[in-house]
């Protein structure tokens, strides 16, 4: 039997997922954690949602603490001490939870940034999500630093002076800024009100930034899975009970504490400043920020052209609008005056083809020499998929004298090399496969069809694997016809690190199918008819 592999006319329209060392390293850690936590409850796969969880935990505990907090120089420290000790079972625990959830949020935001960087998810259509995420670490740290001021203990004194020394190095602020924290009478109740205002205002600004950060996502995930939420809260409660947050002695501006037990998650920049200079820290952080902002344009990757809507074939069904993972599609009045038509925002389009897979016009059973659909990828059109599939199956049947197994495989997931008896069809995303193509392949003479997607939480385009799964199960339009013989279909999910597992699965299925009576090629007649149309016979 001859080895044969199918390739569409534009077989590599997409550069595919990143494969660099950082990417492999991150994915290795993530997949290792999958084995412990399960893919659905892997914290590394829900870092953004966990960040939101921490924010709400901090906000809720902060509201409670603020009820008992006294906004004055003389009363602040004492009120926090009362909270910590007189009602340790509530105020004390919540104060600790407030601190540790804040600390955890810094870690989560840092990991979230590192993950997207490692996976190369910062350029092209993702530029807005990336750039809008850059201010969040600044706002987060600023929110936390102002919180440390409010306790008005030795740490607060250290932080207040360090912050004003740091900002004092900037033109426009000047060295007079630090005078708010160095004179005996420098600190006033009015200043304390300002600090309290900052500690409320900055988190609100952070929330605004977090909201903006997810604006280009459909169904953004802002809540973590139940198990993950419970584990996270339990872990933070545990540390709150074992290491309750404590205040240092009250601030005394006539004394400088020799050692300060600082929170390194928020205050680590200040030792760096004292070991170097305020200017050096500004340069390092400012430079890093600018670099992050510039990354989408500095490190660009070629992507296929965005999808194109064909008004003649778009009936305004809104399925593409519902399925697009990046809100790149909006519905507008149809130029014909009847109903609606999809409109694509090219800047947001990921060129994943999920919309083409959702389009009811993408069925290969439609007559016509060229399969035109309502919304299509110019570099990887649905018509090319059908033409290639027809040619591949017929060629395989002719050359190999046997019906091949068609493997529709997501290019971002596991792939198999050329294999005898297997016709591989690479897809940019498994979600771009209209389910009717499975039916079509079987009726065209395929012995069976394997549809391989990434694991659901591993989808390069967020919802490709999930939508495909639901479509094949008939739970989402367009669904696979009920009459299709499910025993000749396998839907599998393998990550790109699992080519061996996919190959074994496909081979087992091929052998299993080979042992069955061969199904007739019902598609042969249809193909012949289409050829007769094209040749005018």
């Amino acid at each position, binding site marked *: 039997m001859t080895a044969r592999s199918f390739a569409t006319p534009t077989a590599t329209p997409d550069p595919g997922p990143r494969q660099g060392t950082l990417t492999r390293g991150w994915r290795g850690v993530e997949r290792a954690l999958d084995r*412990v936590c399960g893919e659905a409850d892997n914290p590394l796969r829900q870092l953004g949602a966990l960040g939101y969880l921490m924010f709400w935990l901090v906000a809720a505990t902060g509201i409670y603490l603020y009820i008992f907090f006294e906004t004055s120089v003389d009363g602040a420290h004492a009120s926090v001490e009362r909270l910590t000790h007189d009602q340790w079972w509530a105020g004390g625990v919540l104060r600790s939870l407030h*601190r*540790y959830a804040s600390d955890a949020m810094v870690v989560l935001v840092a990991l979230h940034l590192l993950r997207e960087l490692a996976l190369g998810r910062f350029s092209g259509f993702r530029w807005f999500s990336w750039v809008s995420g850059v201010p969040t670490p600044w706002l987060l740290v600023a929110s936390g630093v102002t919180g440390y001021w409010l306790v008005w203990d030795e740490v607060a004194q250290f932080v207040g002076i360090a912050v004003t020394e740091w900002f004092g190095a900037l033109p426009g602020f000047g060295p*007079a800024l*630090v*005078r708010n924290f160095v004179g005996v009478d420098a600190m006033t109740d009015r200043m304390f009100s300002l600090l309290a205002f900052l500690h409320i205002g900055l988190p609100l600004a952070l929330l605004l930034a977090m909201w903006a950060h997810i604006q280009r996502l459909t169904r953004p995930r802002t809540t973590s899975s139940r198990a993950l939420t419970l584990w996270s809260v339990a872990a933070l409660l545990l540390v709150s009970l074992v*290491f309750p947050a404590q205040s240092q002695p009250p601030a005394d501006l006539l004394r400088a504490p*020799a050692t300060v037990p*600082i929170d390194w998650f928020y205050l680590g920049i200040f*030792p760096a400043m004292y070991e170097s200079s305020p200017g050096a820290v500004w340069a390092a952080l400012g430079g890093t920020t600018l670099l992050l902002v510039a990354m989408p344009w500095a490190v660009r990757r070629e992507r296929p052209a965005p999808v194109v809507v064909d008004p003649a074939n778009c009936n305004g069904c809104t399925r593409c609008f519902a399925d697009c993972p990046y809100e790149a599609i909006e519905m507008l009045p149809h130029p014909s005056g009847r109903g609606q038509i999809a409109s694509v925002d090219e800047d947001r389009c990921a060129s994943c083809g999920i919309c083409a897979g959702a389009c009811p016009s993408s069925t290969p059973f439609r007559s016509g020499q060229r399969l035109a659909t309502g919304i299509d990828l110019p570099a990887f059109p649905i018509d090319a998929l059908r033409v290639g599939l027809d040619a591949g199956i017929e060629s395989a049947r002719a050359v190999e004298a046997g019906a091949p197994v068609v493997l529709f495989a997501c290019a971002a997931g596991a792939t198999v090399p050329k294999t005898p008896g297997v016709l591989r069809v690479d897809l940019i995303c498994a979600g771009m496969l209209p389910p009717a193509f499975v039916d079509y392949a079987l009726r065209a003479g395929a012995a069976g069809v394997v549809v391989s997607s990434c694991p659901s939480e591993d989808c390069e385009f967020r919802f490709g694997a999930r939508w495909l799964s639901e479509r094949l199960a008939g739970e989402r339009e367009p669904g696979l016809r009920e009459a299709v013989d499910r025993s000749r279909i396998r839907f599998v999910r393998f990550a790109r690190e699992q080519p061996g597992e996919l190959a074994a699965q496909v081979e087992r299925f091929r052998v299993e199918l080979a042992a069955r009576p061969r199904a007739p090629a019902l598609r042969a007649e249809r193909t012949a008819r289409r050829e007769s149309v094209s040749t005018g016979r």
Partner: protein
Amino acid sequence: MAGRAFGWIGQGVLYALFAAAIGTFSVWPAYRHLQPDEALLRLSFKHPGKFVTDCRSRSAEELAKLPPQLRAELDCPRERSPVRVRVDLDGRTLYDESFQPAGLRRDGAASGYRRLSIPAGEHHLQVQVNDDVRTSAATYQGERRVTLAPGQVVLIDVIADQGGVVIR
């Protein structure tokens, strides 16, 4: 079943480690800001220097050239002198710096901030301030013998209303 137990135990260990890391680095290691036998000297002031030149009377010709609403008899340039501060500790000069007035026209107050850790103990502190370019001598000065405990802060300020140099 064994896999499920492994998952629960594994997650428990991982979350406990995460919690321990959060709790630990939230306060540890303590940052040593000063050595145990050190005190801190801070110079912090915001002080407007004297005007660089005195007011002068405008001549009748000069006044005539001005728009009616601007015909003030006195011409008072607003540029201020830089503030030069020299701090000597036990006869050794720690700072001798000149701080420029703020503002594009240099008509604002000069401000400065310096911090320096010094050995705790008894010291003789001498501060000289010049805020007038028309004289080279110190316009304000102060000196004080201070005994500083470890961690104690001595603050040098310039407050004209309180006699100029303030050491506390």
